[in-house]
């Protein structure tokens, strides 16, 4: 029997497969399709202080091997999440869940995290400092070391649960931003969020997305995400959650070799709602194929110095 368990910031996951924020709602929608307790965990929809409608329509554009979204953090607000979404989730998910948090100011981040920190269902905070969809939002925090560190410190000050900072890939040097977050007390790093992308409609000669640009993700971005995970692994010692273009069990292994302790699956859930189930079911076979007994032993295995 191969071992798929990994330890993410002190919490053991049955396997490293985690549906990514924004592609799995608050979980219970997918619970109609399969038993979501087979997941390592999942990261719920980006949550802000107040309810948000998000960006105007259209919000979606098709790309080769990927898609652009410009949802703009639509969510019911942290209070409604705690009062309505978490109780519904409780009925179908019995593991610690990852709370994805967004904010437009340090205060918003701390208020939302502080509120969620009290909820026993929540295992980790995943703090999105990178969402490129919201003009006044995430982007600015995620693009400088100082702002990233400031969010980290602020959130750490009001939480007991592990804080994972989710980084933007739209930067010159992601490793130094990761290092700044570690330095500021982050318990983990997750990356990457979407890349800023665009499509133009030839018929209307206007951007497809109402907001012009949006977040590009899906299989196409895998080599970029993998490179960034590898670079961040060399810059920090805290666990990394690898995200970007993961669609198969072998992608999970490749991400882990690059340095990820766990892996999130985003856009692929939207076109194949059973992809996480399929990955979890095929992971043991794939591990055997590559001679892997214990998945946690391969973390960072592609680095020259394997022991980090």
């Amino acid at each position, binding site marked *: 029997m191969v071992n798929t368990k990994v330890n993410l910031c002190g919490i053991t996951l049955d396997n490293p497969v985690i549906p990514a924020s924004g592609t799995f709602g608050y979980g219970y*929608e997918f619970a109609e399709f399969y038993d979501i307790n087979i997941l390592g965990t999942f990261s719920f929809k980006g949550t802000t202080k107040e309810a948000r409608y998000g960006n105007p329509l259209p*919000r*979606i554009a098709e790309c080769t091997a990927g898609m652009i979204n410009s949802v703009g953090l639509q969510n019911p607000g942290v209070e409604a999440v705690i009062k309505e979404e978490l109780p519904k989730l409780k009925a179908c998910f019995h593991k610690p869940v990852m709370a994805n948090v967004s904010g437009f100011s340090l205060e918003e981040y701390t208020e939302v995290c502080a509120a969620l920190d009290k909820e026993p269902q929540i295992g980790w905070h995943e703090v999105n400092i990178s969402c490129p969809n919201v003009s006044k939002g995430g982007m600015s925090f995620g693009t400088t070391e100082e702002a990233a560190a400031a969010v980290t410190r602020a959130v750490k000050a009001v939480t007991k649960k592990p804080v994972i900072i989710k980084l933007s890939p739209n930067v010159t040097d992601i490793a130094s931003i990761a290092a700044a977050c570690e330095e500021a007390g982050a318990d983990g790093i997750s990356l990457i969020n979407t890349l800023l992308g665009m499509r133009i409609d030839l018929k209307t000669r206007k951007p497809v997305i109402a907001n012009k640009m949006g977040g590009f993700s899906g299989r196409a971005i895998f080599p970029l995400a993998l490179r960034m995970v590898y670079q961040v692994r060399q810059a920090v010692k805290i666990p990394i959650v690898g995200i970007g273009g993961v669609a198969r069990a072998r992608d999970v292994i490749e991400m882990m070799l690059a340095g990820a302790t766990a892996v999130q699956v985003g856009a692929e859930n939207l076109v194949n709602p059973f992809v996480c189930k399929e990955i979890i079911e095929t992971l043991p076979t794939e591990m055997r194929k590559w001679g892997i007994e214990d998945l946690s032993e391969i973390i960072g295995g592609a680095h020259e110095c394997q022991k980090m």
Partner: protein
Amino acid sequence: MKQAIYKVTSNKRIAENIYEMILEGNTTGILPGQFVNIKLDGFFLRRPISIADCEEGCLTLLVKVLGEGTQAMSEITEDSYLDLLTGLGNGFDLSKSTRKPLLVGGGIGCAPLFYLCKQLCSRGIEPAVILGFNHAGEIYYEEEFRRLTPQLTIVTADGSRGIRGFATDAMAAASYEYFYTCGPEPMLRAVANVAVTEGQYSLEERMGCGFGACMGCSCKTKYGSKRICKEGPVLESGEIIW
């Protein structure tokens, strides 16, 4: 929502740029006004297509070639297999119907009205139907509709067949107690302008998932935001913000 593989038993051109695709597979619980989301080789996103007809084990889709995905769909050959998500969307609410419902379709928007018409008829309700097209070459399913109801009005913008004008011109002249409509957005707006009763609109929006997970299709209504793929595609006249 269900995911399943369907076999294409036929795919043929039935009008200008319009293809009728017949699929074999599970059809339990599929309602009029619902849609399927189709995986196509070489495309990332699935393509949403309404149920045009549904009989036990057999689905009919009517596809208008509009871009690259629908072009690829038109080229799918018999005996291929397609990966579909089915049972998507709320579908038309038949219980709201009265004895005199009117169905108003425009272009490819006539497609979902066919299965709706069939279901209404099977409940003993015989709807009047207005189908609008740009010109005669685009007309499809005229015979099929006529077999269900004698009250069929064909309208073409250039008068090459039926009445000259828009579907809404015919609607303005009709008498009805409730309506169901589907068509291009400008037509739906026009319907909203001429409608004298309540009714249901089937809307379109670019979709990420088609089953409620991504918020990609979430539109504002008078009663909060609704996902076109989940709380839609059918909205009631009272809730739409035009």
